[in-house]
């Protein structure tokens, strides 16, 4: 318990102190790094301690009597509401008042009247919690360390923005604390409190540059997340007043009869969809790009959006074969496909990453919505790998932007010679996102099997088409990095030590994770799934078509979707890829003739231009394909959002009517 309390409360304490350290100083940098490392160490210790000393199968429960803490939380919720009110009035966004009040006032009422008071435990630690603690603790803390060097450069480049870096660090830590609280809460009201903190916090972080665009985008993020918060609140009211339960674990006991709990599960899923930026709520995550890169990295990889899919994965056993399941799978699958098409059409590096995040979250969402053990296995794996790889990608794009002033993929032409270290990291990141022996793609493969087994045909189709377009945008980015311009000199990158301190460990982690894939599965993911689905085990056996010898889970005990033999083959592939750079040395050890690339006209000698028929030099400019007239944002974004909205409204109405009246 003390370690868990430390994990949650320490970041808040750090945030409080950092809030007052407005000036950039050695001392402050040291403090940030120290706090982040402390949090990181604590989360690792927490995980080990839990494995060694606690019964992870059943989960460990903490804090059953929490009258005082409840009062603190009520006060906290009230303060959050006041904060939102003040911002809304300041910027004259009055609809925010309504959304915030709708979510907060019932919460205060339930808390203060003691209606939601319970003797059940408020915190619960099981395998999934530990996985999430590790993801948030390691990736999140490294992002904070990265921010130290980044924000210094950021303000050197953007002198037009007021330097509020103390406040910035403070918000990053609040985020970590809220996330830790969210993933360890079993009590819905507590979870709601942390949920709202992340909403408000992301709003403040996105608005950090204080430009018109930043303000607009931050309010967009706020209203979408507050709307989701209202859904969360509705679920809590129903649980407390009708079902007389207060905790998620109690709600999950209804997994055998999901029809009873269709309303709260539907509402919680709705909240999760907003938080995870699924269509039609995807726009807030794109808007979040205006914020400094550590914010994007934090929002996209370890926190915020992961809170949504975390909740969906938790609720997954409730979704098998229900309306909610159909809603979540359809929205998720569609988002995966549509966002991957949109990612093709943009050239801003961060925007590509944003669309790819939305797309990948869609896949996790769809996996959760299936409500089958194999799918959830894939979903959790995706979550882990996505957090590590995406944060690494964001950090390297951010570092590149600080070094060159541009984060456009087109400007990354020939990066492999100019910034070899960053190019190396990015290459691992992109491979990690897209090709098979690396983590993401293996999890995607497992997801495909699960989708086929679950009988959700549209998910199979979405996945097949979506992974083809995913390949397109990653490979063309990789191609840009690999374009070797002759005579291009290596540039000195201005990446700070603190930034490398974050990037390198993540890169190493990304590769190691691929090697220990089966271990993660055996020791963390599979045990969780066995427990989560034990209540609905009988249902699963009948639903899976046959042949357990294939490594497909025909019962919850072998929830591993990919056979050992395949892992060995992939291991071989991974090793082959690792020896490629060495192979290059060997291949090039034989001195051979270098030729110029073919230009049709006479090459000017450095592969950058040619002499035309008049003898004049023509510079060449090579650009990737973006196909805006086929998949452009202007062309398909709006129809996609409208389609998703219409579908969501219909399904939510169905869930509400079905859940409340039938």
């Amino acid at each position, binding site marked *: 318990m003390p370690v868990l309390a430390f994990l949650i409360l320490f970041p808040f304490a750090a945030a409080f102190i950092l809030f007052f350290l407005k000036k950039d100083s050695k001392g402050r940098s040291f403090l940030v790094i120290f706090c982040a490392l402390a949090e990181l160490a604590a989360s690792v210790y927490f995980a080990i301690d839990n494995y060694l000393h606690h019964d992870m199968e059943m989960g460990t429960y903490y804090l059953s009597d929490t009258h005082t803490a409840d009062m603190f939380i009520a006060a906290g919720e009230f303060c959050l509401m006041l904060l939102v009110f003040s911002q809304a009035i300041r910027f004259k966004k009055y609809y925010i008042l309504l959304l915030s009040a709708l979510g907060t006032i019932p919460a205060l009422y339930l808390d203060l009247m003691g209606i939601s008071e319970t003797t059940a435990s408020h915190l619960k630690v099981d395998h999934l919690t530990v996985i999430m603690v590790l993801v948030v603790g390691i990736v999140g803390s490294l992002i904070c360390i990265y921010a130290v060097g980044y924000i210094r450069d950021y303000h050197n480049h953007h002198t037009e923005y007021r330097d509020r870096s103390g406040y910035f660090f403070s918000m990053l830590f609040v985020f970590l604390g809220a996330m830790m609280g969210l993933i360890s809460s079993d009590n819905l009201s507590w979870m709601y409190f942390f949920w709202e903190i992340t909403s408000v916090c992301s709003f403040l972080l996105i608005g950090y540059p204080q430009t018109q665009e930043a303000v607009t985008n931050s309010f967009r993020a706020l209203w979408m997340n507050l709307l989701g918060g209202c859904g969360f609140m509705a679920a809590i009211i129903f649980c407390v007043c009708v079902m007389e339960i207060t905790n998620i674990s109690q709600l999950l006991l209804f997994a055998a009869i999901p029809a009873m709990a269709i309303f709260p599960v539907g509402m919680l899923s709705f909240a999760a969809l907003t938080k995870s930026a699924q269509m039609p709520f995807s726009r807030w995550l794109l808007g979040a790009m205006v914020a400094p890169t550590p914010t994007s990295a934090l929002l996209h990889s370890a926190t915020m959006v992961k809170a949504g899919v975390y909740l969906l994965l938790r609720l997954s056993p409730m979704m098998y074969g229900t309306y909610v399941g159909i809603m979540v799978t359809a929205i998720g699958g569609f988002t995966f496909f549509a966002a991957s098409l949109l990612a093709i059409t943009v050239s801003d590096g961060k925007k590509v990453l944003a669309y790819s995040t939305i797309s990948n979250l869609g896949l996790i969402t769809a996996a959760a919505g299936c409500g089958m053990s194999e799918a959830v296995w894939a979903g959790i794996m995706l979550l882990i790998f996505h957090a590590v790889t995406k944060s690494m990608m964001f950090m390297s794009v951010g570092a590149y932007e600080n070094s060159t002033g541009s984060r456009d993929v087109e400007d990354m032409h020939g990066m492999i010679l100019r910034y070899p270290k960053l190019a190396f990291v990015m290459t691992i990141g992109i491979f990690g996102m897209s090709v098979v*022996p690396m983590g993401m793609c293996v999890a995607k493969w497992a997801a495909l099997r699960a989708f*086929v087994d679950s009988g959700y045909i549209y998910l199979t189709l979405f996945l097949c088409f979506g992974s083809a*377009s995913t*390949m397109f945008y990653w490979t063309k980015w990789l191609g840009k990095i690999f374009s070797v311009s002759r005579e291009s000199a290596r540039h000195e990158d201005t990446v700070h030590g603190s930034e490398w301190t974050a990037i390198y460990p993540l890169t190493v982690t990304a590769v190691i994770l691929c090697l220990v894939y089966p271990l993660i599965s055996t020791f963390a993911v599979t045990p969780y799934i066995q427990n989560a689905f034990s209540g609905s085990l009988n249902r699963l056996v009948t639903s899976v078509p046959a042949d357990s010898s294939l490594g497909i889970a025909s019962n919850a005990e072998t929830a591993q979707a990919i056979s050992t033999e395949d892992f060995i083959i992939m291991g071989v592939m991974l090793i082959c890829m690792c020896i490629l750079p060495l192979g290059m040395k060997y291949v090039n050890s034989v001195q051979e003739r270098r030729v110029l690339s073919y230009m049709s006209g006479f090459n000017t000698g450095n592969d950058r231009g040619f002499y035309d028929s008049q003898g004049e030099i023509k510079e060449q400019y090579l650009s990737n394909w973006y196909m805006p007239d086929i998949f452009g944002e202007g062309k398909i974004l709006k129809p996609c959002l409208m389609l998703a909205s219409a579908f969501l409204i219909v399904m939510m109405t169905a869930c509400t009517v079905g859940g409340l009246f039938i």
Partner: protein
Amino acid sequence: MTTYGTVAVIIYLLLSPVIACTLSGVDRVVTARMQGRRGPKLMQPWYDLVKLFSKETTSVNDIQKILVMAHCFFAIFSGAIFFAGGDVMLVLFALTMSEVFLILAAYSVNAAYSEIGAQRELLQMMAYEPMTLLTAVGFYLATGSFKVDKIISTDLPLIIKMPGFFIGFCFVLVVKLRKSPFDLSTSHHANQEIIKGLTGDLSGPVYGFSELAELYEEVLMLGIVGLFFMTKEPVSLLWAFIAIAVVMFCMSLIDNIFPRVKWEALLKAAWLVTFFAGGANLVILSLAERM
């Protein structure tokens, strides 16, 4: 790995280039006859390949050669998984990876024509990948396994259950084997590519490696075609060979009689065929399996 698997892999590794070259030679002779020409010698493609490896090695930069070799390695590797009776899905993923290396090699030379080829190759991948993935899913639904050695031990040839997948797969095979009618990243017909596109800056043995990879890939693709006709009876191997021959002949025919079509049409056509032929078959198969 079974004994059959081992034998199949050895045959694949040793004989693929010869088999694919012969097929390509036949294709050229047939094409020539359709056009009223005599055509080259049957083994001409083989002589071309051998000659490439006797030339001087030149390259544009340090990474081009290793990338092409990686491409070749993974192409052979994916075929080896297939003939060893491995997982079809893994075969396709390994094949994708091999394609990525070739595309990177084309990007690395930093030249306009290679770059156009690379973009087109990416587009081609995007066009055919849904269908190849769906085909693998189809095999799984029809037989309950992704493993080739399990897939070929069915009672009835899979074509009966999977005609839609077969049509779709043959459609993308046209692209995979670099035949008409679409504009392609690179091909043996000047009308379909721009200055050799993807492989424009490869020469000598380096180009040889990319050709070699293509030959292995062709054998793999035809292997997948054969998979539709295999059953546990050994005689089905004969049917598979006949089917492959018919498919190859149709490819030559299509190659000769179709006009040239732009790349936009490729994407649209391939996705539509995938969606309707593959998708419809998927729905039916999925419902049937669930009954």
